[in-house]
């Protein structure tokens, strides 16, 4: 391998941000990745209704060859089935076995990782939320801005700017649909009361969605196909960033490779990586100088635990994730008014609530219902299916969903471990909710329902759905930054102690998890690690 090359494991949001940062500083990068390829959506000019009409077999595209996106009544309470075209993003990997308790893990072995399916919410942490990080918040500030200018983040200068400090100058927001506009108008009227009584601020979502053309990626034209795959590249996914890396000198991408473990000297010098081609063939050994793990929190834990199995480390404590609760709501003023299939499909509004009483901030994303499949919602109405369908047609334009996120913190009881199950090294993901969750969740949800009432909307209590831990896919905390030192923690540069040349740059690094979506922070952190390594 060429001298001075940094090896990055994983092509997800983290790995790609890191690679771009290193390449910008003239460093050579070799990216190793399982990297299954996701097919890019076509017809960048067709909005959802016209696109559905253009499909050779709409049932197969929308519901899947074997009906995998068909949501039947024994489903898990989610309100949409996942599009079949995105199935590959979550497909498992032969030989990568896991068991879980209290947690429903989602891993990706796709080119671009989990964020090939993300919803683009990009919310920077505040300086207070970065307090546990062993470096000044300003360093992250720079990185947030660099990432924003690379991927493009849209939003508005509004009340949310107080709680989401970056990017300082977002692209203009995506055009709001009529339901969103109505909620915003109601917020304008209730603003002072909401601030005073509910400690709530609301504003336009911060989204990794272009509202101006940028090279190959084109501005959002409200095609309403976000869930099925944005055909314009308006919604950033890491595979677009990977394509940018591939244009640069000094970048090599090797897909089809699973990194099994690292091999280091007793002095903590990582010398080799053990690799396994995923489509068969003999295992390989790669000599390395500097390695950065960015395989996603759980897969990175797997690599580290496999590497340390011989020295008695079999568990990484501190696994975190955001508890999410889905709260469907109705805006009665929009009943019978129809919906706009041609509009941005995911959340267009975000709100932040300070619940007080020692509880941490709540972060909620508000989506107005559009072109996702309707049969999961229709079947949840408490009358016969034919009546429910008629009712739903009038309800559609009035429906929305609040995705309420709760913060988490590192606790020893929640961990990732490697266990020998029947002769196979198996990843165990174990999660125990924080002791106060039982009281904090209902109190937070009451607050959300009150806010919705002031926005002229009504949220039936019985329809709220507490998602299982793991469903938010905001995994973090297993190899955290620490100012105090200690093995298997990171120093300020992202170096994993006690190793000399092994770095970690994904969710594993976070020492705490606010209620906000974390990926923007993961990218900014990876960018920052790249800057330190590259300079």
């Amino acid at each position, binding site marked *: 391998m060429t001298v001075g090359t940094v090896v990055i494991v994983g092509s997800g949001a983290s790995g790609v941000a890191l690679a771009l940062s290193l390449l910008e500083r003239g460093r050579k990068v070799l990216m190793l990745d399982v990297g299954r390829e996701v097919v890019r959506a076509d017809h960048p000019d067709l909005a959802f209704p016209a696109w559905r009409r253009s499909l050779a077999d709409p049932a197969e595209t929308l519901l899947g060859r074997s009906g995998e996106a068909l949501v039947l009544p024994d489903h898990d309470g989610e309100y949409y089935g996942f599009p079949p075209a995105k199935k590959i993003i979550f497909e498992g990997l032969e030989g990568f076995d896991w068991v879980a308790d209290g947690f429903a893990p989602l891993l990706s072995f796709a080119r671009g990782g989990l964020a090939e399916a993300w919803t683009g919410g990009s919310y920077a942490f505040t300086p207070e939320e970065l307090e546990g990080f062993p470096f000044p918040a300003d360093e992250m500030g720079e990185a947030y801005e660099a990432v924003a200018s690379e991927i493009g983040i849209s939003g508005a200068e509004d009340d949310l700017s107080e709680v989401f400090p970056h990017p300082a100058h977002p692209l203009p927001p995506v055009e709001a649909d009529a339901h969103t506009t109505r909620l915003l108008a109601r917020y304008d009227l209730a603003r002072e009361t909401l601030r005073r009584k509910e400690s709530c601020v609301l504003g336009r979502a911060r989204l990794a969605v272009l509202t101006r053309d940028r090279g190959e990626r084109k501005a959002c034209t409200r095609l309403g196909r976000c869930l099925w795959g944005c055909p314009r590249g308006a919604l950033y996914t890491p595979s677009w960033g990977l394509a940018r890396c591939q244009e640069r000198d000094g970048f090599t991408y090797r897909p089809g490779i699973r990194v099994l473990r690292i091999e280091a000297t007793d002095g903590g010098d990582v010398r080799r990586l053990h690799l396994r081609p995923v489509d068969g063939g003999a295992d390989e050994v790669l000599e390395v100088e500097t390695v950065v793990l960015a395989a996603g929190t759980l897969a990175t834990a797997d690599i580290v635990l496999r590497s340390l199995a011989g020295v008695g480390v079999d568990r990484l404590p501190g696994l975190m994730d955001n508890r999410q609760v889905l709260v469907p709501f109705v805006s*009665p003023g929009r009943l019978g008014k129809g919906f706009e299939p041609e509009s941005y499909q995911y959340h267009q509004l975000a709100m932040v609530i300070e619940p007080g009483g020692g509880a941490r901030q709540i972060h909620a994303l508000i989506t107005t219902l559009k072109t996702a499949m309707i049969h999961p919602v229709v079947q949840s109405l408490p009358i016969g299916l034919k009546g429910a369908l008629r009712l739903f047609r*009038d309800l559609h334009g009035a429906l929305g969903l609040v995705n309420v996120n709760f913060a988490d913190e590192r606790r020893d009881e929640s961990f990732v471990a490697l266990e020998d199950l029947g002769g196979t090294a198996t990843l165990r993901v174990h999660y125990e909710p924080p002791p106060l969750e039982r009281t904090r969740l209902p109190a937070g949800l009451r607050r959300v329902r009150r806010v919705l009432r002031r926005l002229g909307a009504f949220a039936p209590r019985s329809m709220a759905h507490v998602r299982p831990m793991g469903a938010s896919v905001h995994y973090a905390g297993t190899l955290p930054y620490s100012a105090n030192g200690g093995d298997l923690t990171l120093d300020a540069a992202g170096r994993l102690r006690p190793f000399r040349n092994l770095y970690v740059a994904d969710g594993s690094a976070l020492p705490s998890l606010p209620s906000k979506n974390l990926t923007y922070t993961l990218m900014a952190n990876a960018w920052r690690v790249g800057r330190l390594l590259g300079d």
Partner: protein
Amino acid sequence: MNAEHLPPAPSLDMMTSWLGFPDTAPRLREAYERLARARGLEARPPRSLDRALDRLASWGRPGLALADAFAARFRKRGPLRRRLILVLALLEADPDAGEVLDTPLSRGPAGAVFRGVIEAVGHVLLLLASIPPMAVLAGWESATGGRG
């Protein structure tokens, strides 16, 4: 045996036309068969209550309406409802039917609320009306094992 001809379940034609889309069955048939098979919806229901529901549902539109109301209350996860949900999902994937489903039936909040009340009352009446035939059919199914 295929899902379309499962006795005494309602046919695809009956379900689509009852849902208000009488012309769609021919173009949905292949996908209906395939998905019903893939999701295990073509087996004969082992429970006598489900067989009774199927029997009621195959008595034409009135029977299907009664069975739908009964299933919504007492067999939400039962095979009849699952097959109806499959048909609904296929209709929304169909460009023509999907566009119809995307439009509201009422012209604003007042009309929608009025329609909602009508639907709710209609559901309660259908549910009440479904109980006597279901009691008879379920009794007969459990006595004969459905071989009558």
